[in-house]
């Protein structure tokens, strides 16, 4: 059982003017798989390193099982970490790499042997135990790095972009392996990535960060369905959410050049009106998969239609992505592979406004 509380955590580097991490609050429950996601330099790795004890905490409290551990050395926090660069000791064999932490903690030889072989078994590393890291492939090295964390049997795993150095195929395979590992070991895990797919597929809860600030904390579904602001909406989901600057006018939204005029559903409209957005500007967000080219949809919702010329079209096998422009705004629409069209074709697209997101153009926060 382990619980982790981050309470009003701030981080400012010595030579920096601004805070790298600002007012980070998060309660992590036992066995949870938490993913910090955000663009480069958003403070996600810094936060992870503060939890590990590799960086000082400028302000705020980090609690493990209720005890403030701000000033505890990394080795006393009993945390295992997997580094982006693997950080395997190059002069030691795979076995010694995994055994190093156990030896330092004075485990008996038999116990070390048992644990290392157990971990090697889980990760399929048995036959490589006597090899040095240089003689391993990237995927194998990554597994050794995981093994080093597993043998420790530490209550908390930290992973700092562990898959970013692997090729695309291996990354998918390792993603599944890490997810399975977590199901088996149930170790509380904090995982840092800039890849929203990793975040969506692995996390129990996602923490979306930007510029050192937490933007949203929630389950993958929550973050995907109810993004709190424009940034989260645009960051989570691939391809990214489309945004249009629109004005609300008597139940309809239109863009600046009045290229489209879409009917807002009842429930949504009531909320927007009650918040005083009638005749006001809004940011209208719609996911590429919520735009359709099927004739049936277009006929059913004649009030939800956008016409545009496709500039780039990508066939991805099962689906195709059509890139187009209305006015000055570019957007992408994800449709069935059968609806693939050549670039230059004029296409009518139906917008599923029941899935629409609205944001305030000033604050960029979600209003619906």
């Amino acid at each position: 059982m382990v619980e982790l509380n981050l309470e009003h955590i701030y981080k400012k580097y010595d030579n920096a003017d601004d805070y790298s991490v600002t007012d980070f609050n998060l309660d992590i429950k036992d066995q949870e798989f938490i993913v910090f996601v955000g663009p480069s330099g958003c403070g996600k790795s810094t936060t992870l390193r503060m939890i590990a004890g590799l960086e000082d905490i400028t302000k705020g409290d980090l609690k493990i099982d209720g005890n403030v551990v701000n000033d505890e050395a990394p080795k006393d926090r009993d945390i295992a970490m997997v580094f982006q660069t693997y950080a395997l000791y190059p002069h030691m064999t795979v076995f010694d790499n995994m055994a190093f932490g156990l030896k330092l903690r004075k485990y008996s030889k038999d116990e070390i042997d048992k644990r290392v072989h157990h971990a090697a078994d889980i990760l399929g590393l048995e036959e490589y135990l006597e090899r040095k890291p240089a003689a391993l492939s990237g995927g194998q090295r990554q597994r050794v790095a995981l093994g080093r964390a597993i043998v420790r049997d530490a209550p908390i795993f930290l992973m700092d972009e562990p898959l970013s150095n692997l090729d695309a195929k291996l990354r998918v395979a390792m993603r599944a392996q890490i997810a399975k590992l977590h199901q088996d070991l149930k170790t509380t895990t904090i995982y840092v990535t800039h890849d929203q797919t990793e975040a969506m597929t692995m996390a129990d809860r996602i923490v979306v960060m930007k510029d050192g600030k937490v933007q949203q904390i929630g389950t993958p579904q929550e973050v995907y369905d109810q993004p709190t602001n424009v940034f989260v909406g645009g960051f989570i989901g691939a391809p990214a959410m489309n945004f249009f600057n629109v004005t609300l006018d008597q139940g309809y939204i239109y863009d600046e050049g009045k290229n489209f005029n879409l009917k807002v559903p009842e429930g949504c409209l009531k909320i927007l009106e009650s918040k005083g957005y009638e005749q006001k500007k809004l940011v209208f967000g719609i996911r590429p998969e919520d735009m359709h080219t099927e004739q049936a949809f277009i006929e059913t919702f004649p009030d939800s239609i956008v016409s545009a010329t496709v500039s780039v079209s990508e066939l991805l096998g099962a689906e195709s992505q059509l890139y187009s422009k209305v006015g000055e705004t570019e957007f992408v629409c994800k449709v069935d592979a059968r609806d693939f069209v050549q670039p230059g074709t004029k296409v009518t697209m139906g917008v599923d406004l029941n899935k629409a997101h609205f944001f305030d153009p000033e604050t960029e926060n979600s209003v619906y």
Partner: protein
Amino acid sequence: MAEKIHTKGKSSIKRSRFIKYFLTYLFMLLLSLVIIYPLLITVMTAFKNSDVVAFTLSFQGPWTLKNFQDLFMTTLYGKWYWNTLVISVATMVIQVAVVTLAGYTYSRYSFAGKKWSLTFFLVVQMVPTMAALTAFYVLGMLLNGLDHYWFLTLIYIGGGIPMNTWLMKGYFDTVPYDFDESAKLDGAGNFTIFWKIVMPLVKPMIAVQALWAFMGPFGDFMTARYLLREESNLTVAVGLQQFISDPKDQQVALFAAGAILIALPICALFFYLQKYFVTGLTAGGAKG
């Protein structure tokens, strides 16, 4: 037509490759001559009768081992040799220890005056030893260190620290910091990280440092000449010079024999350390 051009191209590639190799080997041959010629003279002379008067290359006998015998029987060579060994080993051990720790500290820790002192090192090592000789002498007098090994050893060590600390720091910098952090989380303290993780990865540089520090006292003439007085206290370089310092009675054969023996411990150390002279120790540990 096309084929003709093709073969022509082929032969010109062959020719340019030939020229490339020819020039490379020619250069290496010249270099070897420059190195081997004086060495050969010394080796030849060492095994000749003591009536040889000048360094010339000649392969004519008679050959003898008498010079080596004389060195140890009639001169103080044995004593000088021992003196030098003591100084060399002490210099090597202390200098490597100091420089390794200093290099590690400069590479891994930040502290007040770090940048300033590194710049200071850089400036200090630009001053040639010769310019400092008088200062060394005065220092020796003040500390009562003239004609004492410990003082000469300290001078050698001190002279080697600035430059070699820089080199060591540079080498430590090539060991990714991720290893340290990974070890920290594995439960290692500062000393364990240094000893078990980082040190093994800088062995090549430590080996080079050891060899250099060991060779220094064997090759140094000037500082030893200045700071050592008593004939029985000399190092080999200074001692040997005495054999040929009298223009009317140059003991060339004896000098050559003594010079060759100097190479022995250095060669031995080199071959012992050779296994550490490898590159790419950090390969495979970190990718990024």
